[in-house]
């Protein structure tokens, strides 16, 4: 059972960022229209292209994901570790996160923080933008710290018992988050805020980028791992079966603690000031982090097969027909399953991005947003939508309205995001840049820079973006109607997340403790980051200001 005194906090942490998502999604649709040259202007209805792009990134990729990670964490930890979450810490964390978001929203929507969520000094934003982001992140830390005493107590009270798998996954998520946000906290607190307040002359740009990208890639695992928790813990049960391998599930979460951080230089392949040898090391380590995802593909496919055969599935491939793709009672299943389907292409294109010399083909082209919309806007976003609906409806004791529509949403989204990405992949390989208001130059027939050969990719992208927008509208239709349904106190009290049993329930010591994995992570980080850090600090780059 999910802890009763956390219900309000969890529901607030789900619904607050979803409200902001209305704007984030709205501007996603606008961006594809600008890029296709269908809006040829620097702004639309008073909001500039790059202001909207900043809000789209901050809301969708930082605010929504962080709030959701915390809210889902509260639900999983309190259910699996016997109501042990500190409610005061949860409330304080939520208050800080909401305050931080509101503080940052002011300068973003006033157009005083058009720096995109990547900060990219020496573009300067209003100090409140940076301060708001700090409060948001600190709020997530406080929420995480509120789980630790209860976890240690649970371990003491249950000697010899395995920590429940979902809790392992959530702790792995937030251990990664805690480690990777420290350097970026240094960047923001020591470099950016004093400079933005006018207290320092400028920023060591090379250093700031190294610190940001230390954070930038583990961030994607912070997005992804809550979805993995759902895949391992919940999806096999929804499919009518069991988790194929408990050991692999634990190994995957713990391996991510070690492997998700020492590889950030693969975002900096095309940059000066860092030796290609260090970049090659990070490229190799990036490939290593593909291993837990390959194991995941195996374990989840095996779990689905087991479930399908329990449902009467037969044959070598025919069993695929026996999964609850359109089952209105198990409407959550397609949100998880289709996310995995999307992630197959997201993962493969990620391997392209990691491939060192291939970076010259695709760096900063529209290939990159095409790729990450198949990850963060694929498995991550669908899992967030589905689970937000599931949790808020369940915790409030409501009934899901229009379940047929609820089932259809992930399908509409999948068609949309595949179409969108197809267009942007195609354009990216032709050299179309990302983060660019194309309608003002390259896709303006009256401009000297007009590129008619770039139209087709952007048109396909625009069609996909509009379908994605439609899926979001359908989602809000179902969410609002469900929340408006009659409340049942009894339903609310008995609500819990589905938890799968294990088919192979191995008991292997190496996955029974976080400590060795955290130690390994710290060693890997030191080996991979100390040499480039010494190189950058040794070169005495000037302080630069806008």
């Amino acid at each position, binding site marked *: 059972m999910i802890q009763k005194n956390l219900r309000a906090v969890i529901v607030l942490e789900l619904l607050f960022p979803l409200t902001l998502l209305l704007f984030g999604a709205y501007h996603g649709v606008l961006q594809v229209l600008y890029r296709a040259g269908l809006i040829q202007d620097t702004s639309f209805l008073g909001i500039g292209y790059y202001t909207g792009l900043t809000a789209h990134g901050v809301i969708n990729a930082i605010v929504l994901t962080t709030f959701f990670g915390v809210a889902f964490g509260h639900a999983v930890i309190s259910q699996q570790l016997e109501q042990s979450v500190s409610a005061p810490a949860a409330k304080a964390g939520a208050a800080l996160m909401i305050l931080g978001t509101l503080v940052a929203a002011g300068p973003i929507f006033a157009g005083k923080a058009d720096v995109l969520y990547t900060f990219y000094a020496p573009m300067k934003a209003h100090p409140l933008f940076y301060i708001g982001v700090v409060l948001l992140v600190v709020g997530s830390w406080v929420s995480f710290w509120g789980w630790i005493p209860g976890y240690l107590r649970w371990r003491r009270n249950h000697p010899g018992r395995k920590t429940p798998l979902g809790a392992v996954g959530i702790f792995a998520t937030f251990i990664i988050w805690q480690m990777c946000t420290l350097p970026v906290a240094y960047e923001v607190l020591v470099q950016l805020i004093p400079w933005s307040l006018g207290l320092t002359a400028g920023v060591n740009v090379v250093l700031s980028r190294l610190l940001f990208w230390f954070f930038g890639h583990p961030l994607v695992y912070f997005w992804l791992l809550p979805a993995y928790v759902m895949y391992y813990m919940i999806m096999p049960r929804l499919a009518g079966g069991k988790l194929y391998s408990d050991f692999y599930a634990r190994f995957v979460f713990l391996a991510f603690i070690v492997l998700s951080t020492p590889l950030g230089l693969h975002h900096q392949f095309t940059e000066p000031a860092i030796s290609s040898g260090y970049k090659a090391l990070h490229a190799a380590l990036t490939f290593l982090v593909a291993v837990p995802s390959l*194991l995941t593909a195996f374990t989840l496919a095996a779990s689905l097969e087991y479930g399908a055969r329990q449902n009467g599935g037969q044959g070598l491939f025919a069993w695929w027909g026996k999964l609850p793709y359109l089952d209105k009672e198990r409407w959550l299943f397609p949100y998880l399953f289709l996310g995995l389907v999307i992630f197959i292409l997201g993962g493969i294109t990620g391997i392209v991005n990691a491939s060192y010399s291939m970076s010259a083909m695709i760096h900063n082209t529209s290939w990159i947003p095409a790729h990450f919309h198949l990850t963060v806007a694929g498995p991550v976003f669908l899992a967030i939508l589905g689970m937000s609906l599931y949790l808020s409806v369940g915790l409030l004791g409501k009934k899901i309205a229009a379940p047929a529509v609820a089932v259809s949403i992930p399908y509409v989204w999948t068609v949309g995001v595949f179409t969108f990405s197809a267009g942007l992949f195609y354009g990216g390989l032709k050299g179309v840049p990302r983060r660019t208001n194309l309608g003002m130059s390259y896709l303006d027939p009256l401009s000297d820079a007009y590129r008619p050969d770039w139209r087709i990719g952007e048109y396909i992208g625009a069609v996909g973006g509009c379908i994605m927008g439609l899926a979001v509208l359908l989602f809000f239709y179902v969410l609002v109607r469900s929340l408006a349904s009659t409340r049942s106190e009894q339903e609310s009290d008995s609500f819990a997340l589905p938890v799968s049993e294990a088919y192979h329930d191995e008991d292997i010591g190496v996955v029974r403790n976080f400590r060795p994995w955290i130690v390994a992570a710290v060693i890997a980080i030191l080996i991979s980051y100390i040499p480039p850090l010494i190189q950058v600090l040794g070169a005495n780059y000037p302080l630069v200001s806008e």
Partner: protein
Amino acid sequence: MATNSAIPDVERKVLAASLIFVAAMLGLIAYAAIRLGISVPTCVTGIKPFEEGELIRVGPGRYEAHVVAKTWSFKPNRIKVEKGSVVDFYVTSKDIVHGFMIEQTNVNLMAIPGAVNYAQARFEKAGTHQILCHEFCRAGHENMMASIEVTP
């Protein structure tokens, strides 16, 4: 539900297959980098950030381009070289971060203030290559561009 301390055979095989797959991909990258010489920019220490953009002819068919990116233009803005030329591009920025991508080549660089980036390109075909800034650099970003004309 069996509880035991052994990893089933099939799971060992999957782990081995995953590692072999990853090693094979890395082998291909190493081959491209070492044998084919397709690498990524490295730390350039031999040249200080320059103030002026210019194209320097260092020999027959050999050029050195010192490119300065500044909101929202590149200097030099129109580069002209003859077919078959090899050009060493050194790229820096005078203000904020910009991008420097030459279409239909492997030149794709970040222009960072205070640092110098480097890539080399050989131009085998006559024609014009567009150069574009591919990093957001505020309002005029989408109009920050230049070109290279390769004469026959």
